[in-house]
């Protein structure tokens, strides 16, 4: 994470951290203008990251069944709301409030007591950007556990991940004193910090919950449970793609660096290559290009480039994106068919697996220090350390959290509720009141006209 310290003064007058209204009489200076540019840039990028929540909502809803749409929307809405408040009260402090042994922050709860900290831009701006990131990590889980998790259990897990699991990892990597930061671990915008944490937590959740009723036949045959609104799913993916232009270039925390243009470019090219890569794989496997996996491929490319977006060349970005796009459908098949972990929207593969690959890829493709650019294996080793540490942390913490939550409130809705749909069961309403729907979810068959065949 890049931070620049260009300001001479930090005036904490109700958010006026640089020559603002309070100092208007003095007029702008070169330095205040630079900070203003940085602030404007970071806020706008944060807005784009916020928009990713709309993207997540649509992707998750689109790729699941109509009878669970209300529930998915509610989960996403809660993730943002609760995530913001918790990250304000607790999470930010653990992530950025000073340091204890490189492991965790210790002050700044509710943003109090941090007048001494300088984030280059007004603290509220910095908080805002980090807060929308936090909610992103949490929301990744939502997709993997969709269509069967109890709403209250999901809410509780969101509390744990936004208030503790995620902020700690942020501290390790993005707080200068964090132990992974000290080792030189490069994860510019969060292939591992955000997507790894989200993806591996999603893995634990999906695994502990078990598959949706009907996903696997009595004899283990794999069945498709098609999503109900591919138009919205596509829109969601495009909104996520757009949001990534805030996610990655915004992670400079500065608009006064030319890096933002490079990062936007590597991000765009990796996403494009991921799309093409996934499309080609599905085309070859099934004789037809598959939209659902191709959309996942775009996201895979984006997750893949996130760690190295500022460190690799455009051509490196294309290669990373392409490989992510190729890995994606294979990973989806692996979890679906080999491990039989039911992940309705592919969250584990998109965020966990492509995030893992992308983080390692920095060790290979970094123009400065990457193996392929003559930099040896040192960086790669550091990258592997970071990946493994975060993976272990997320799996263990996630496991404990889900287990405890399961004990307290139970993880999974009843089979009757699952079949009728969580919209009725958890929220007492339907998403599409005026539309005739094909028969609602039933064991073994999502519609009256489906008979799945394993291939």
């Amino acid at each position, binding site marked *: 994470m890049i931070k620049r310290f260009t300001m001479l003064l930090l005036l904490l007058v109700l958010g006026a951290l640089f020559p603002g209204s309070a100092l208007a009489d003095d007029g702008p200076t070169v330095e205040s203008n630079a900070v203003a540019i940085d602030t404007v840039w970071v806020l706008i990028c944060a807005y784009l990251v916020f928009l990713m929540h709309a993207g997540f909502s649509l992707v998750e809803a689109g790729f699941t069944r109509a009878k669970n749409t209300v529930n998915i929307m509610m989960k996403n809405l809660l993730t943002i709301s609760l995530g913001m408040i918790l990250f304000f009260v607790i999470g930010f402090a653990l992530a950025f409030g000073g340091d204890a042994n490189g492991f965790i922050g210790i002050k700044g709860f509710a943003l109090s007591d941090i007048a001494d900290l300088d984030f280059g831009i007004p603290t509220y701006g910095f908080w805002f950007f980090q807060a929308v990131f936090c909610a992103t990590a949490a929301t990744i889980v939502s997709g993997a556990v969709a269509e069967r998790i109890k709403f209250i259990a999901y809410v509780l897990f969101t509390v744990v991940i936004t208030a503790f699991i995620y902020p700690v990892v942020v501290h390790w990597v993005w707080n200068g004193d964090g132990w992974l930061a000290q080792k030189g671990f490069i994860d510019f915008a969060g292939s591992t910090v955000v997507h790894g944490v989200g993806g591996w937590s999603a893995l634990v959740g999906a695994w502990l919950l078990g598959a949706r009723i009907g996903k696997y036949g009595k004899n283990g045959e794999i069945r498709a449970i098609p999503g109900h609104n591919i138009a919205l799913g596509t829109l969601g993916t495009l909104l996520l793609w757009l949001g990534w232009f805030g996610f990655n270039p915004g992670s400079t925390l500065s608009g006064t660096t030319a890096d933002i243009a490079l990062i936007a470019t590597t991000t765009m090219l990796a996403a494009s290559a991921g799309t093409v890569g996934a499309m080609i794989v599905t085309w070859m496997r099934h004789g037809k290009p*598959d939209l659902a996996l191709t959309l996942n491929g775009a996201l895979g490319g984006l997750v893949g480039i996130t760690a190295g977006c500022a460190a690799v060349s455009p051509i490196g970005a294309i290669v990373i994106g392409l490989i992510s796009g190729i890995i994606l459908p294979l990973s989806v098949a692996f979890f679906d068919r080999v491990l039989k972990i039911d992940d309705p929207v592919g969250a584990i593969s998109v965020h966990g697996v492509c995030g893992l690959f992308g983080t390692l890829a920095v060790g290979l493709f970094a123009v400065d220090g990457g193996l392929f650019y003559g930099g040896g294996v040192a960086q790669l080793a550091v990258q592997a350390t970071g990946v493994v540490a975060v993976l272990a942390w997320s799996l263990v913490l996630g496991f404990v959290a889900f287990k405890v939550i399961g004990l307290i409130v139970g993880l999974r809705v009843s089979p009757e509720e699952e079949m009728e749909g969580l919209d009725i069961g958890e929220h007492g309403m339907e998403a599409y009141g005026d539309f005739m729907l094909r028969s609602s979810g039933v064991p073994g068959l999502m519609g009256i*006209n489906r008979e799945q065949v394993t291939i």
Partner: protein
Amino acid sequence: MLKIEAIIRPGVLEDIKEGLAKFGIHGMTVSQVMGCGLQKGRTEVYRGTEYSINLLPKVKIEIIIADKHLDGVTDVVTKVARTGEIGDGKIFVSRMEDAIRIRTGEKGESAL
């Protein structure tokens, strides 16, 4: 009084309506159904899993007619709906006891 139920491919409805108008038959009730029979379904893929769909969309037409129109109606339907390929559909005939026109209360054939 007879009920003609024809299960046909979607899309030939308009021609059937035209054909029946010749006999002065204008009333009919149409619904969307799914059918299976000899016709084979199709294969779809979703997220890498292939599956076959063996109920195909069909249109069901119900026409209540006076007995005398039986042959005329079945002829029209058969002619219009036939492509000669599997999946053309079927016509079923059954007897109705009575019909009532709600608006007027008329009964029997005059209610059709």
